[in-house]
């Protein structure tokens, strides 16, 4: 299946104070793809993700998620098919317990209680967070919060998973568990991150942003070996590749 699942067509967006954020971004992501979105701070990664979820609306251009263009009227449907994991799990875990947070989405969809329960159990299991169900969010470690946040999004059974800096603040073990988790998901994934090594392990395709435009869009391996491109975009090679004898010394 290669129909587009997520696409941006020439999206232009400015910040409230007038600074341009996106200057005509276009790309199309297909069903089942795992795409990394990289770029310097301020390049527009988070802004693009917020457009996908319909939290921001473009000044011009079109955003499509699944069968719908993202407009104020279609937000409900868009959000049903797209799960957004925010950068700070504390912004996302706002209920008294993890279980309540995971149930929040299905309850809002109007599902009956027994279906909600099924979804909650499944989502917690998928995210490896079953033991966290009764715990309040403030008592969780960074990795546990991240897992709980992912579970809270999975319970809505989205087609697309969108993540903003998922590995930020995680200790190495938690990060390793996250990578394993992401690799096991069959959802279409869009991951915005500075963690280039995570992109190398999880995403087959990478989109590089620079100053609100797409600077490169292609297979992860070839993008990460293009040193000129990377330094131009204020990036560098993933740490794993930097001392690789085959890719050559820096």
């Amino acid at each position, binding site marked *: 299946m290669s129909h587009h699942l997520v696409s941006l067509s020439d999206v232009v967006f400015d910040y409230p104070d007038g600074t341009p954020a996106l200057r005509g971004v276009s790309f199309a992501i297909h069903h089942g793809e795992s795409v990394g979105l990289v770029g310097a701070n301020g390049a527009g990664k988070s802004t693009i993700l917020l457009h996908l*979820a319909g939290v921001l609306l473009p000044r011009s251009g079109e955003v499509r998620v699944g069968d719908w263009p993202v407009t104020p009227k279609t937000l409900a449907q868009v959000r049903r098919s797209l799960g957004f994991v925010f950068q700070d799990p504390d912004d996302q875990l706002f209920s008294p317990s993890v279980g309540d947070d995971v149930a929040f989405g299905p309850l809002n969809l109007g599902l009956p209680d027994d279906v909600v329960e099924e979804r909650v159990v499944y989502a917690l299991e998928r995210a490896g967070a079953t033991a966290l169900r009764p715990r309040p969010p403030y008592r969780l470690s960074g990795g546990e919060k991240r897992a709980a946040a992912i579970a809270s999004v999975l319970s809505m059974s989205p087609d697309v998973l969108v993540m903003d800096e998922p590995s930020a603040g995680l200790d190495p073990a938690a990060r390793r568990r996250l990578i394993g988790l992401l690799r096991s998901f069959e959802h279409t994934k869009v991951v915005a991150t500075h963690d280039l090594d995570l992109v190398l392990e999880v995403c087959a395709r990478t989109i590089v942003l620079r100053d609100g435009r797409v600077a490169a869009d292609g297979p992860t391996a070839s993008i990460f070996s293009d040193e000129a491109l990377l330094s131009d975009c204020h990036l560098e090679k993933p740490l794993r590749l930097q001392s690789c004898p085959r890719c050559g010394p820096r």
Partner: protein
Amino acid sequence: MRTDGIAAALAHVERLDGLARADSLAGRLDPRAKLATTLAFLVTVASYGRYQVTALLPLALFPVAILTLGDVPLAPILIRVALVSPLAILVGIFNPILDPSPIGSLGPFVITAGWASFASILVRFALSVSAALLLVATTGLDAVCAALSRFRVPRVLVVQLLFLYRYLFVLFGEVSRTLRAYALRSPSHPVPRVREAGALLGQVLLRTLSRAQRVHAAMLCRGFDGELRLRRPLRARSADVAFVVTWFAFFALSRAFDLPRLLGNAVAGAVR
């Protein structure tokens, strides 16, 4: 009150929260039962006569019972009672000063009405403060809110309590870090000054407002439409009903009769 450091206050809330989440006999009771009984207890305590002291004592059975059934350690409760007492003492201490008329004697000592009413205030204070703390230590805010919404408290207020509690820890942490950063950069006066309040609190407030926006976005992304749906199945069991009925009866009994005096009379009579 304000004498608490933020860290101490946070530790206190966390401890109470932890106690509430632990399993105990008192913890398993329906929150509505505990809330109703605690309120009845408070009303009963407050209804005693101004000079009654010993007649109040049997009521201490309630907090003691909840403490034991809830596996709550005694020390934090007593400490908290002591910490909050200055205000009640400050007002009550005027009674012995203003009213030296005697109402009784204890051996060679004359008891004045003022001291009686002061003692009454102190006993009442200890009883009501401990009852309130024990309620939250065995029930937790989450369950109390479930009980409140069943008692028809406006939903907007219940949701507000839950959200406030959830983000209390986050904000305590932020304010505490801000204060620490300030103190480290001003060793000569670690307590910030009023004119610095604007920038100090203002930065936290701005971050708080941004956080509110992000939380709102996160809620929207999961289908929030303005109404928070809470899943709170509460089922009253016979144990809960028995709990309420028994304590209500005990409160009424204790209020109607001066039990310690009766006991004293009986024992004194038997001895003679």
